């Protein structure tokens, strides 16, 4: 069985969900509605022996130029599946609309998807329904905004909001220091 066969099988089985399919540099991609993503992933894992989740990531399509495979919604979650035994792979691109930015979590199928989904939530702001512990992971807990969205600037002009708090805490703890004068934050600004 080839990757293209999987695309055909998906088209047959989930005819309402599959929006489009394409091939680029020998890699097959399928654009899909988000509604039944858990069923599609279960089908791929159990029926097509796609047991390895290579990669899961979020994409913001808002500034993307129209390409060969058009995008349907503002966000998408991209899954790469691979079958270790059969050696074929496929890419799913689940379309997520901006006004209801959420998709079902696949942590029930792959435990490893846990952190990948958290990262996607942290950096792209896509909610994963049914995720056991959806918190920020790479940025601090009180971070505002989702850095990988296209409207998020590369450089900010203000200081990090936690900085003042950290400075105060450092001052409070500095009386336990051996070399108090050298270690006070804020003197060398």
């Amino acid at each position, binding site marked *: 069985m080839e990757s293209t066969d999987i695309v055909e099988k998906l088209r047959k089985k989930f005819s309402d969900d599959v929006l489009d399919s394409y091939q680029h*540099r020998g890699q097959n991609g399928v654009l899909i509605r988000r509604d039944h993503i858990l069923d599609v992933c279960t089908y791929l894992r159990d029926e097509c022996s796609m047991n*390895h989740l*290579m990669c899961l990531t979020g994409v913001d399509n808002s500034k993307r130029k129209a390409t060969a495979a058009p995008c349907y919604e503002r966000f998408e979650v991209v899954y*790469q599946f691979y079958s*270790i035994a059969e050696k074929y792979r496929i890419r799913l691109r689940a379309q997520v609309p901006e006004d209801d930015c959420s998709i079902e979590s696949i942590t029930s199928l792959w435990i*490893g998807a846990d952190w*990948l989904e958290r990262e996607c939530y942290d950096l792209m702001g896509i909610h994963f329904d049914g995720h056991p512990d959806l918190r920020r992971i790479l*940025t601090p807990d009180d971070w505002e905004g989702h*850095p990988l969205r296209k409207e998020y600037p590369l450089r900010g002009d203000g200081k990090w909001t936690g900085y003042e708090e950290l400075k105060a805490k450092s001052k409070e703890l500095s009386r336990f220091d051996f070399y108090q004068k050298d270690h006070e934050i804020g003197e060398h600004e």
Partner: protein
Amino acid sequence: MSKAMNIDIPVPAGNEDHYRIKMGPQHPATHGVLRVDLDLQGETILECVPHVGYLHRGFEKLAEHRSYVQNLVLTDRLDYIAAMANNVGYCEAVEKLLGIEVPLRAKYLRTMVCEMSRITGHLLGLATHALDIGAMTVFLYCFREREVLLELFAELCGARLTPTYTRLGGVRQDVTHSIMMKLERFVDEFPANIEEYETLIDTNRIWLKRTVDVGTLSAEDAVSLCITGPSLRGSGVDYDIRKHFPYAAYDLVDFEVPLGEAGDTYARYRCRMEEMRQSNNILRQCIEQMPPGPIVGDDAPDLVMPVKPGRKVEVDAPARQGLIKLIEDRETFMEGDIYVPTEAPKGELGFYFISDGNGSPYRMHIRSPSFIHIGALKTMAKGTMVADLIAIIGTMDVVLGECDR
């Protein structure tokens, strides 16, 4: 932040054996700035919550604002233990996206530096792993050999840890006769060195007590946790990207993929040792088969080192314009997305690119093995002892620079 800074956690009365301990982020056994919050009953871990992100530098965001060539230096800072493998992974992905052909000699050189960096990575992994669980001597022995390879990197491209050796369409500099001679001597001596490590710990009773049946992963669990690399192969799953998606010259050299059976820390350790032997074989084949020819392809973007040594190249406006023009010419090729995995020492290092015909990636995602391996700690450490957690962190061989990106 305020929650994280709260030091005084009350212990409920009548439950004095129940501890909450924050391990890290400065603890030397954590291989970098990894913090693990532990919920303990006596010395047994009830729950283990790893926290990462202390080294987050926003490479994925940064990459969207830089050209493909400029992004190459970011990859050095991912897995700084074995940066060459990241360079190769990045270049393979971009070349596939842009459709650039690499000459055969450059492919062999890439295979060579990849395997050298695999040996350095495994040596450091073994050294720190052994140091964590109390075998000091191995650390010193491993660093002895690692030093030889790092010196070779320095001779090859001028840097030990951040080489930026590959270029889109080839590599930066050709090997000299002296490098090949030194490498050949290393390849001849290295098998004896591996045996030396093995005599130190292979049948050492303390080592066996600390590693056998510790952190056991069944094949199904390992696949479900998305673990890759030697950590997965220790559980007996035959998944090596060098065999599954051959890149560089891996389809031209002959090597085997060592597999473990038990899936415990000891099996993963054995896997890494055998892998170093295989890497050594690949290095020998690279030296013997190294074909003559150019090291940069004809259709590579214009930003390679000048042929004449000693001349400084400046990325001035014309050069930059040339590059952007060249990339614009490729517009028809460049639309679309691509995911290219490579076998880094730690596991599957994948680059997912989306390009919309611009000079820089629309989106670059790095699938880093360490990130996923640390995510697996939570499952693996549950119900084990605190001391075993140290062994598990060591055996998963994580690097936080790669995890946090």
